[in-house]
């Protein structure tokens, strides 16, 4: 990899004082990536694109939104009706949130499948979990802002989770509210936080990428890069692939934005918040449903809150719970199956989270919650010891050659 000196005089002048060109060259253009990454590796950069998307549309919305209980709902409707392209910005932001979570969840499950959390990428993984928490905070504070019925009652229910803290819970909740209930002080501070959190996310993303570039990307084989033969430069190979991925992602996003903009939202949120009447069916947005199912599966208030928190916190110790010496599920015949079982478990949790908390749904949610924790706390440690992984290839380069190899004789035979 060469470190090109910029030919342009102005660029040289800048480069001498602040080496932006060689920095960009190192991190974006020539950065060596494993040459066997598959399309599941697109989702990290797609998440970055969604973050920018949300910040840009969000700033535009903030220019028109009024964070006051008497005006918030009206100001959102004014954006929808009176502001030029306001409906587009609002729907793009609303559905953009869902797209952001969808992309990030795929990114996380890719990491789980290919063992991207394992040494030496633990801190990279931790930063990712921190990002997930920050995103959840941004999503929740943002959901409250339109001040519809579901905004109000989501704020009420979620802030009341803190009342589960022994002794000081009640005081903490009043502190969060800035009053004796969900009201204007809460709306104001949520607006402030909703504007702040994305920029904290940007900061942590920078650390996340720093860690990534320090220890390099994992790859579908889960083996380390051994020589330059194993890599290709980021540009043009992954820039073009990421641009293609962005096009495909935006296509899906635009289907929602333009044709079914309210499908993922709750109907009742188009009724202005009414502190005296709870909607008959309270559900969070789809991306929170699995946690919500875990919360409701535990019959104890404090226990439910703890279980919900631990369901994400457990990811922090996953690098040590997974005792396998092999990273990628490709070479772990049993884990490969159990990964899909775990994914199915999460989807069922999401589904049951949307159902009323009664009868058979409670039973299902308890079984799935138990399995969720068992997967991390029991299966992962034991499986790593018992499972016999399949032999790993010598190097990325050889594995790629082998895969491509048989194609050439076959093509040659066709000629005869």
């Amino acid at each position, binding site marked *: 990899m060469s470190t090109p000196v910029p030919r342009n005089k102005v660029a040289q002048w800048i480069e001498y004082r602040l080496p932006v060109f060689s920095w960009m060259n190192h991190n974006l253009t020539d950065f060596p990536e494993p040459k066997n990454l598959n399309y599941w590796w697109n989702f990290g950069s797609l998440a970055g694109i969604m973050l920018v998307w949300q910040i840009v549309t969000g700033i535009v919305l903030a220019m028109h939104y009024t964070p006051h209980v008497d005006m918030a709902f009206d100001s959102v409707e004014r954006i929808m009706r*009176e502001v*030029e392209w306001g409906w587009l910005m609002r729907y793009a932001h609303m559905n953009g949130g869902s797209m952001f979570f969808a992309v990030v969840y795929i990114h996380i499950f890719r990491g789980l499948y290919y063992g991207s959390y394992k040494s030496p990428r633990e801190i990279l993984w931790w930063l990712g979990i921190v990002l997930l928490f920050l995103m959840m905070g941004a999503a929740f504070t943002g959901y409250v802002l339109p001040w519809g019925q579901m905004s109000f009652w989501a704020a009420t229910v979620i802030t009341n989770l803190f009342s589960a803290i022994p002794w000081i819970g009640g005081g903490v909740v009043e502190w969060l509210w800035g009053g004796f209930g969900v009201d204007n002080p809460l709306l104001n501070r949520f607006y402030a936080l909703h504007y702040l959190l994305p920029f904290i996310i940007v900061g942590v993303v920078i650390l996340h990428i720093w860690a990534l570039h320090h220890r390099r990307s994992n790859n579908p084989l889960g083996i380390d890069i051994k020589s330059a033969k194993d890599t290709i430069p980021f540009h043009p190979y992954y820039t073009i692939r990421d641009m293609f991925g962005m096009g495909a992602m935006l296509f899906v996003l635009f289907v929602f934005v333009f044709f079914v903009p309210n499908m993922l939202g709750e109907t009742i949120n188009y009724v202005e918040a009414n502190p005296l009447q709870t909607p008959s069916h309270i559900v969070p947005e789809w991306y929170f449903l699995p946690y919500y199912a875990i919360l409701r599966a535990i019959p104890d208030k404090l226990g439910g809150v703890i279980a919900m928190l631990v369901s994400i916190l457990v990811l922090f110790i996953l690098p040590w719970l997974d005792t396998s010496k092999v990273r990628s599920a490709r070479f772990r015949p049993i884990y490969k199956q159990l990964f899909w079982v775990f994914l199915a478990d999460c989807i069922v949790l999401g589904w049951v989270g949307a159902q009323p908390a009664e009868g058979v749904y409670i039973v299902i949610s308890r079984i799935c919650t138990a399995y969720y924790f068992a997967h991390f706390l029991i299966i992962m440690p034991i499986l790593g010891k018992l499972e016999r992984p399949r032999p790993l290839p010598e190097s990325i380069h050889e594995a790629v050659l082998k895969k491509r190899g048989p194609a050439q004789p076959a093509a040659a035979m066709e000629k005869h």
Partner: protein
Amino acid sequence: MAETSHQHGVPGAPPSGETRRDFLILTAGAMGAIATIAVVWPLLETMNPAADTLALSSTEVDLSAIEVGQSVTVVWRNKPVFVRRRTQEEIDAARAVSLDDLGDKQTDEERAPKPEWLVLVGVCTHLGCIPLGTKKGDPRGDFGGWFCPCHGSHYDTSGRIRKGPAPKNLEVPAYQFVSDTLVKIG
């Protein structure tokens, strides 16, 4: 970015450009440029005055309570509008001025079709301050009209700039008399 890429660092890259790919890259580049404009344009357009803001474009003023020599200030599009019922001396002074003495050449007949009533947007054409001269006891400047305290612009009894940094006369908004005592601005 795209064109510098395959010239270095790519193992086994074919040395000659391929026309198909060049065509594809040109197409993608052009479409990408269009897409960027199509994204940026609506983002900027959101900052235009919204439909409800544009709709609030007229104000009605009841003139019956204004006595000769008196002025009132009303609000139109978030800006003050001065309505002055001029005395005969003020009208005569305004009409006697030769166009040669004016920086922004407008006759008083153009500016006040009904000579008794002068309607002006009360925003100094220099940098947007509100000139004095409407309230009793306000300084009216050297020409008996309005005086802008920010940078010392003097306007005459027709609201025309006579002295100071302002480049233009005080703007006359579009207005019409609905009746003898009711004027609609905007």
